[in-house]
């Protein structure tokens, strides 16, 4: 996934930038479609991420990982 590093914070600031550009009419009509496409991608991405099941998968992975770490911690002489 190319947008792996896209965080909510980055997404929202990019979105605000786009909206500002459009509202200030800094956007050429030729670029408008690109901007709107990008914005709608970001919105869709965020909205999906809010509800996506990926987090569930991560949760499972994370608990497995933690169990392993704990085992290692316990195995270490203190």
């Amino acid at each position, binding site marked *: 996934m190319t947008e792996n590093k896209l965080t909510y914070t980055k997404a929202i600031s990019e979105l605000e930038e786009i909206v500002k550009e459009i509202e200030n009419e800094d956007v050429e*009509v030729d670029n408008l479609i690109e901007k709107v496409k990008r914005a709608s991608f970001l919105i869709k991405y965020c*909205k999906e991420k*809010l509800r996506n099941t990926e987090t569930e998968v991560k949760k499972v992975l994370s608990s497995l990982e*933690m169990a392993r770490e704990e085992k290692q911690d316990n195995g270490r002489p203190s």
Partner: protein
Amino acid sequence: MVMEIVSLREFLGQVRQVLEFAYPLQYRITAEIARLNIHHQSGHCFPDLVEKEKDKVVAKASGVIWKSNLDGILKKFRDTVGEELKEGMKVLLVIEVRFHELYGLRLNILDIDPSYTLGEFALSRKRILAQLDKEGLLNRNKQLPFPPVPQRIAVISSESSAGYEDFLNTLYNNPYGYRFSITLFPAYMQGEQAEPSILAALERCYKRRKQYDVLVIIRGGGDNIDLHCFDSYNIGKAIASFPLPVLSGIGHTRDETVVDIVAHKKLISPTATGEFVINRMRNFEETLEGISSRLVDFSRGILTEQQALIKEADNHLNIFAEFFLRKVNQNFNSIVSDFRTNVSKCIASREFFLKQMPDNLASALRIYVKGHINFLERQEDRVSLMNPVNVLKRGYSITFKDGKIVKNADSLQEEDRIETQLFSGRIKSKVEEIKKRSSSGFLKGEGDDRE
């Protein structure tokens, strides 16, 4: 004075009498409970009371709370302080001084004033907060930016607690369908082990801090509300300096604990904590929706505007084109008609010219010929005037010497033979006398013409 000899028992009996005589009333003293020592069989309580100065015990005494008083005292303490009476607490005691021959000095505890302990707690909390403030930690967690979407949540709580259950239910049953990734770092949330256990959980969570957006501390709930560990300096410090924003969801109605104060945000219950997180997500989504509708509105606006512009331009273009064509047409027409007029004018003038031509030519010729005739006539007159015959006719004569015309007397000498031509006939003569400079004006013009 001879000292009476008495037995130990008699002597201690006297000491008891003196002591009880000297301290006949109830007294209010402050002390720290070093050990509580509840005797399970008898139900009595034999606390060890101490006073410390810089962690060093400087006074020590035994106390007793009889079973008959114990339940009332403990209940009142619990209700007021919000915690069980326990070792390490500073208390205000109402005591009587008792001395027993077998057990020695013993303070009979009639009552414990819980408001003193509460005040002590407040003081201790104040000291901890002041210390954290001094270390620049008091507001450190609050200064962390709170993530717009606290979706990956680390929780420190006890697994089986009702509070954790409430928190999970609130998140998992959120009406918007938001998904959360929740990781529990289990810890004891009350009792003696609470502090080290919570610190250990914080440590484990710290190691994995990059995987979470936020840390939530949820306390068990239920009747037993023991918050003492949340007023700990060590936990307060660990939370204040934690790299993730910490939400404190320790449900209670008491004064704010140190944890509540240093946390990024304090919520009144685990459920409220869950709701806070959901609201945060909802706000984010509303921002998204706001942006989305602004985008749509503005894009639509821009498109409408552009369409209007295009339409207007189109109209203008049509009007202009029409106008232009009409104008061109007009110009063309006028050019054509001008051309036509000019051509016909031109032709007419040529025609006129040509028509006039023969007449003009004829009259020109006439004038020309007449001019020449006049000229010739004048020349004729002049020529005839110059004919010497005509001059001779008028009485002039021409003199020759040796066949040449004599115009100057200087060219002659006396005795020269000369011939004179008259109009009619010639005469020969001899020069007698020469008069020089006898120029005669009337001959001058004739002489010039002849040269």
